[in-house]
């Protein structure tokens, strides 16, 4: 049961996370001083990377 829930969670997090990146990829133009395309890219992908790390950590501690 816990494995099934983890798989559902992974599908939701990774699926929606990839959709977020895909839909916002064209929105990385810097808007102001202090912004650049590379920092915008970092802000876009960082949450998904952290989410994947959290999924892996959850799998590692799952009873």
């Amino acid at each position, binding site marked *: 049961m*816990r494995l099934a829930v983890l798989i559902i*969670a*992974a599908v939701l*997090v990774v*699926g929606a996370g990839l959709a977020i990146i895909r839909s916002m990829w064209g*929105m990385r133009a810097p808007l102001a001083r202090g912004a650049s395309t590379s920092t915008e890219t970092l802000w876009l992908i960082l*949450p998904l990377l*952290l989410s994947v790390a*959290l999924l892996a950590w*959850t799998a590692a501690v799952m009873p």
Partner: protein
Amino acid sequence: MTTAAPPPPTGPRAVVRDLVTLTKPRIVALLLVTTVCAMFAARQGVPNGWLIGWTMIGGYLSAGGANTINQFVDRDIDAVMDRTERRPIVMGRIAPGAALAFGIALVAVSVLVLGLLTTWLAAGLSLVGVLLYVGLYTLWLKRTTIHNIVIGGAAGAVPPLVGWAAVTGEITFGAVLLFAIVFVWTPPHFWALALMLRKDYSQAGVPMLPVVYGEAATRSQVLLWTLVMLGTTLLPYAAGAGAVYLIGAVVLGLPFLGMAWQLWRGDASRPWAAITFHYSLIYLALLFVVIAVAAAL
């Protein structure tokens, strides 16, 4: 002939009321719910009452100080937004320098309260939360990127870490999960609000997503982030939480998803941005209550 606006109330009571307003008590209340419920989760039961009390006082002072400093920094844009134009600094009832000093004093006292009466890790984390809110969000990201509230949302996710650290003196996997839940809750919550205040943010030149890329793009992001949030709220069960938590998370999460869906569809029958925003507040509070109850059972 025009009639002059009545002078603002003066006197000690009015000043105290303005100082309390600077701390944004309603927002801090929600943060304290996540803090206290995280303490129950950390203890896997009911924590000491005094510890809860001191953590709440320290947490209020810390978040209130951060909110006060935020209003000092943002006083220029607060003045041109309908929602914020009546704040004490903008109205001239509290001098900017006095507000800044008050905010810094609150943060300093909060560090002492948390450090001396709970744990120094809790104190340090609360200070990190202040620095994230003021430095990362307010001073850097808010005016420069559409991802301001996504990355800046880390600041609002710190209170559960503070609560956890106050009880255990350490940060473990469970604390990180609670941090993650608040972090991924922030985008759908805040972008629903930004949809309601699009004109305000546009006037102030704040690059909120709906201002820069429009309402349709924002509605899509609210739905996608709601899915990320729902997935993340399942992780505590996968990691060992009981069925009570799973049922609570799903029962609370599905209406959120339904509202985000209606918002994404552009259903004009009801003000879905406002409904989603208000539900998101209730959702987070109740989800953390479920976390606390499930831990205490």
